[in-house]
């Protein structure tokens, strides 16, 4: 019998009314790679936050090295040798690589020379070549991740958690990372590995635990199962049920046309079009330029060249204001920072993109009219809130997103762009948001959806454009929807870079 390094016993955690974890069991043994699998929002990251001391569970116990322990904050976890490397990296962008690595133990007098030498040794050991004097903010995301790992390794670690480490890594860097992980495993470190890439999980993991809707579906040894078994455990029910029927929409004339768009480094020669009633997906890895395309079309970032036309008329967009006037709406990726004014009431947020409808000629508000309009809108969007005067901050993620959608329903434009519309939204609200996106298209709008969840794109979209390095590399239609095809197109270099079929 192996003693576990860590044993999480019937952990529960709820935020407000939402149960993020329901009596979850999970353990880590020395010298193993334990993969944690599940859809986005299944509770994997929350569980790891419990292990990392960032969240105190509502119920259940944490046993470390056979002793019941209370992890009150990340420092408690660190002291026990537990390190969690998150998707969002926790580095100081204005400090050098070396300073970041030794941030927790910087001496009073900093000798740059010895600090950098020690940093260099650590990074070399990981098999990478990064100048320890560079500012972390200037590094690629992949290299920032390496710095984060080096930082973890600068201390004595017993358990290390990787939360989707390879999502931002190229194939070569991912292989290097796997070598690092195997090296750690052989030294007796317990590794938790969260990933959506099942092939690599089967390659590296010794055991797997599948989570779904905040519960554990089961824990299995890799040798006992096949990929299909794991998918069945992850999905539980057929994914198709979450998505609305595509057939009820009629696709009409071309509304949005983008030609040879160039904007900065991340948008290069992008051309495509979206028709009325059509939902087009923009897929590809994070950092492939999808968000930048959306921002350029919305006038939020300046264009270098190219034309954006709406209903055949070329637009000159100098600001989001011009775009909104022309009838384009954007549901941004970062809901809290860009989507809503979070401490203001639902009512104020919902009418913000077309305030002209709730003010008279002198600029005075018409509160009664606003109330009726927003109440009706809230009902049709099935918004759950105590009142339309409640601040958006009092809502769950899904309902906050509905407020952003309400804003664009109220604005009533022709084109709507949604960037990661279900990020941080629980499974139930997801299906509702899918239905709303579908409703936008049914209303005859041209809809562009950006998502990192491939199943979401496949379930929702009439076609999916694959982006890679700022270019559109190809197009998928429902008959050839598959994760491999999408990633293949997205990651393919010049070979199939021709912009096949993306212009109607």
């Amino acid at each position, binding site marked *: 019998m192996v003693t576990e390094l860590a044993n999480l016993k019937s952990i529960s955690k709820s935020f407000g009314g939402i149960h993020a974890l329901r009596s979850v069991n999970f353990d880590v043994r020395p010298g193993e790679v334990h993969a944690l699998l599940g859809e986005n929002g299944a509770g994997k990251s929350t569980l790891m936050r419990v292990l990392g001391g960032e969240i105190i569970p509502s119920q259940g116990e944490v046993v470390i090295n056979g002793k019941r322990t209370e992890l009150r904050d990340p420092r408690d976890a660190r002291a026990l040798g537990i390190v969690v490397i998150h998707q969002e990296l926790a580095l100081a962008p204005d400090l050098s690589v070396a300073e970041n690595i030794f941030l927790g133990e910087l001496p009073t007098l900093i000798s740059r020379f010895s600090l950098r030498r020690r940093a260099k040794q650590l990074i070399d050991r990981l098999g990478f070549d990064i100048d320890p004097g560079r500012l972390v903010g200037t590094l690629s995301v992949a290299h920032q991740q390496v710095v984060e790992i080096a930082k973890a390794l600068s201390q004595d670690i017993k358990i290390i958690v990787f939360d989707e480490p390879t999502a931002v890594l190229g194939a070569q860097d991912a292989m290097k990372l796997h070598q690092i992980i195997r090296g750690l495993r052989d030294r007796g470190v317990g590794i938790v590995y969260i990933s959506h890439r099942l092939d690599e999980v089967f390659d590296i993991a010794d055991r797997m635990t599948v989570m779904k809707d905040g519960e554990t579906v089961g824990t299995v040894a890799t040798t006992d199962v096949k990929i299909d078994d794991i998918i069945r455990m992850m999905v539980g029910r057929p994914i198709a049920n979450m998505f609305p029927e595509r057939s009820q929409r009629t696709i009409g004339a071309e509304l949005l046309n983008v030609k040879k768009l160039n904007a900065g480094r991340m948008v290069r020669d992008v051309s495509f079009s979206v028709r009325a009633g059509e939902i087009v997906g923009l897929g590809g890895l994070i950092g492939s330029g999808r968000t930048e395309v959306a921002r350029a079309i919305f006038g939020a970032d300046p264009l270098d060249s190219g034309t954006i036309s709406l209903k055949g008329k070329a637009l000159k967009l100098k600001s989001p204001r011009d775009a909104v006037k022309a009838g384009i709406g954007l549901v941004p990726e970062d809901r809290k920072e860009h989507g809503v004014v979070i401490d203001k009431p639902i009512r104020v947020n919902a009418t*913000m993109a077309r305030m002209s409808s709730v*003010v008279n000629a002198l600029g005075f*508000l018409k509160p009664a009219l606003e109330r009726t309009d927003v109440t009706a809108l809230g009902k049709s969007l099935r918004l*759950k809130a105590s009142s339309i005067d409640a*601040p958006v901050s009092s809502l769950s993620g899904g*309902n906050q997103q509905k407020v952003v959608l309400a804003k664009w329903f109220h604005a009533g434009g022709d084109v709507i762009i949604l960037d990661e519309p279900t990020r941080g939204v629980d499974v139930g609200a997801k299906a509702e948001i899918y239905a709303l996106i579908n409703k936008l298209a049914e209303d005859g709008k041209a809809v562009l959806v950006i998502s990192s969840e491939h199943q979401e794109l496949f379930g929702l979209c009439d076609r999916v454009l694959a982006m890679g390095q700022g270019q559109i590399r190809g197009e998928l239609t429902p008959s050839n929807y598959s994760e491999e095809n999408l990633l293949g197109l997205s990651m393919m270099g010049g070979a199939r870079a021709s912009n096949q079929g993306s212009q109607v």
Partner: protein
Amino acid sequence: MTHTTDTVMPQEQKGFVDYHSIVQRFGTLAIFLVLVAVATWWSDSFLTRGNLLNVLRQVASTAGIMAVGMLFVILTRGIDLSVGSVMALGSVLTGYFCAMLGYGTGATIFLVLLCGAACGLVTGGFIAYLRLPSFVMSLAMMAVARGLSLIISEGRPIPLSDAGAAFSSFGSGFVLGIPQPVILMFAIYIAGGVVLNFTRFGRVITAIGSNEEAVRLSGIAVPRYIVAVYVISGLLAGLAGIIAASRTGVGSAQVGIGAELNVIAAVVIGGASLMGGKGGVINTLLGALVMGIITNIMNLAGVPGYHQQVYMGAIIVVAMLLQYSTGSLKR
């Protein structure tokens, strides 16, 4: 939308938010009432008609009027340090236009307000379109406006006496027994309250202070609104300058030194957040009155002028602690 069974609102926070908003809404009022009680107990002459009107006129012709403009600026998460200097420029220009150029009262007032607004236009333009920090830009305008007022007045006070009595009534006159500047101040607060609560402009500037980027991405022309709040602030500072000139009978480059700090203090005692998005006119008026009453009490108690500044600083800190002791728990 209240029909749902699963309330989404996190329960543990709900009670707290209510408590917090009560403190935010009525905190300044409580401070104000306590001060009035203390002042009444302290001095028999405080609660007399003459003294109260005196306090009001003092407030109106110092921080009171400018605090409305400052509130608008602070709501957008900005700051306007130039108001004291623009007030001096307004005072000097009043003397310049009416005494030296011989313009009529109406023309003088119009031109001075225009110049005050122009100062705000320059400050706001640089902040909104060239993205300069408001602190730095308004600091620059503070120096420029003070310098201009010294240049125009050649460093000497400009007597208004030869321009006739019309001007002195503007600052010192009474309507129905109430000093004119006080009436003007109340009118400005009412107008400010209407704009802030019932118009698109008021809603947008408050939202800009909370989250400028989200407002921009809703298709609202944020820079125009930002310029507008500085124009209003400059215009009201110019007005304060006219009142100062009219009350003292001279246009002087020496008025309004340090006034910006009193104005900011009034707004902040009024519970507005320097991080933008929170604040209201009634509380700002109460904040200005609190400052005025503190000065009045110290005058009645015979505290020497130099000592008054020290006490004022200490009292501001206490008032702020009362406001923020609850607010800081939220974050």
